[in-house]
């Protein structure tokens, strides 16, 4: 079936793809987000829209996706299983497809404990693996989780998932990716890469299993704005590794922001050389304006034409 997803076309064509990320605000005021989206419209294929990231109430991912599409931009709708049961997840999928969204990224989601409604109930009816499979079954088999048939076939959707080479147990992480691919994931975005050695070790194991040929793997890159931000990620964000050398490098630099950008650009340049890495996912949350510069300096601009 012919895909309508620009991201899928780009990845299928073998071009090194670039995706961006937008974090919806804690309000329904979207002007700033729209400006950020507009500023990188020529630099990324599509935009991840986070789903109540870190369990904080924000404009919904699908709501923002609709706004993006009105601007002629392509969303990757993030879906966590934290807040919605299988009825709602499947219904939201249909709703999002009906307004034109084609790319979906399945995640477990941070625990509600970390957010601004820590007393809320964590749903977790499905887990992220089961959500991937559910989306695939709806699309390919025409059946919902219950086994009931969908009344009309779903247009082709592009199913994404995340992988974290920096979580433990490390010796299981590539096997977990294999499981996600078996469940139906077609593209993968990784956790932010700061520890390149560990990422390369993981990629080696990924290639041993031949997974890079079955799924498009996009390396996650986040430009670091300050030593404080690096420290915060090192200490407080579960499943992230920020090596001390990186913090030392920032400390040694006169202009921390410039150095942060240099590191991001170098990371992308290294990713481009790694066999099996199909693209880069740039997460510059609260620093969106630097995305065009990063993409340009990494030699990924202009983006290839794709029809």
């Amino acid at each position, binding site marked *: 079936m012919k895909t309508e997803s620009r991201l899928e076309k780009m990845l299928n064509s073998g071009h090194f793809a670039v995706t961006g990320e937008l974090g919806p605000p804690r309000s329904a005021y979207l002007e700033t987000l729209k400006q950020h989206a507009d500023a990188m419209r020529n630099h990324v294929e599509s935009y991840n829209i986070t789903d109540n990231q870190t369990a904080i109430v924000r404009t919904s991912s699908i709501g923002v996706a609709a706004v993006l599409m009105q601007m002629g931009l392509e969303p990757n709708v993030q879906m966590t299983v934290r807040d919605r049961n299988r009825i709602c997840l499947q219904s939201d999928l249909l709703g999002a497809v009906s307004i034109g969204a084609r790319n979906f990224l399945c995640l477990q989601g*941070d625990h509600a404990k970390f957010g601004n409604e820590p007393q809320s109930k964590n749903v977790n009816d499905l*887990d*992220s*693996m089961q959500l991937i*499979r559910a989306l695939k079954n709806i699309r390919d088999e025409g059946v919902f989780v219950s086994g009931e048939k969908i009344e009309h076939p779903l247009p082709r959707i592009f199913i994404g998932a*995340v992988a974290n080479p920096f979580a*433990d147990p490390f010796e*299981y992480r590539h096997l977990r990716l294999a499981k996600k691919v078996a469940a139906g994931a077609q593209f993968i975005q990784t956790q932010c890469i700061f520890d390149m050695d560990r990422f390369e070790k993981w990629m080696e194991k990924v290639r041993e299993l031949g997974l890079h040929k079955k799924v498009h793997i996009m390396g996650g890159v986040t430009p670091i704005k300050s030593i404080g931000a690096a420290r915060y990620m090192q200490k407080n964000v*579960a499943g992230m590794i920020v090596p001390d050398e990186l913090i030392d490098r920032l400390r040694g630099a006169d202009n921390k922001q410039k150095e942060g950008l240099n590191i991001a650009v170098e990371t992308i340049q290294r990713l481009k050389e790694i066999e099996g890495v199909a693209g880069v996912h740039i997460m510059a949350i609260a620093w969106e304006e630097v995305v065009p510069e990063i993409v340009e300096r990494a030699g990924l601009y202009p983006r290839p034409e794709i029809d």
Partner: protein
Amino acid sequence: MIVAERKPLAEIAEMLKPFRKICILGCGTCVTVCLAGGEKEAEETAAALSLLRQNEGLETEISTGTILRQCEYEYIDDYAKNGFDCDAILSLACGVGVQTMVARLPDKIILPGLNTKFMGYPLEQGVWTENCLGCGDCVLDLTMGICPITRCSKSMLNGPCGGSQNGKCEVDKDVDCAWHLIYERLSKLGLADRMDVIQPPKDWSTSHHGGPRTIVREDVRLEDGE
């Protein structure tokens, strides 16, 4: 066993304020073992409450007692033979016990003295941990005895999530990641490939999501009039 904690004294005092004659009733089974609501705790609570009410100038008459199991009519009936001479009963049983008492003694005011926490076991003296949610469809065979429903903070069936680091759960650095434990256990048993199986969505209808659950076993039921 069922693990509980006594409610703060202030909360207990507040709910008992309208009553003068109070009976504090411990339960002799789980909550005795977990040191929350046995005979000893009933007496301690009575002493503390008396003092508090005295200071507040409230007229008070407190008695104490213990029922071996407040969750079974047989034991309640046995204890209730002599009647209750009080305006309210503070039950130091778990939520099951309190409700069984209410069902059996509908004309009494029975109030909860404990916060019922979970099903679990003592890890060491003074430390209890939860390990079963009573989901109604046990998967311990898949994980070789480590419950992902209870012990994974996201109740994942296909873990571990991306927050697992150094064997600990993203939610709390003092909590073991259940899926890390499962991975290690399965690996040790030579069953690591079980992790590759995509576990399908769980049937939560057997869990507590559909109203109170009931088990009927015809083989042990009594015939009418038996």
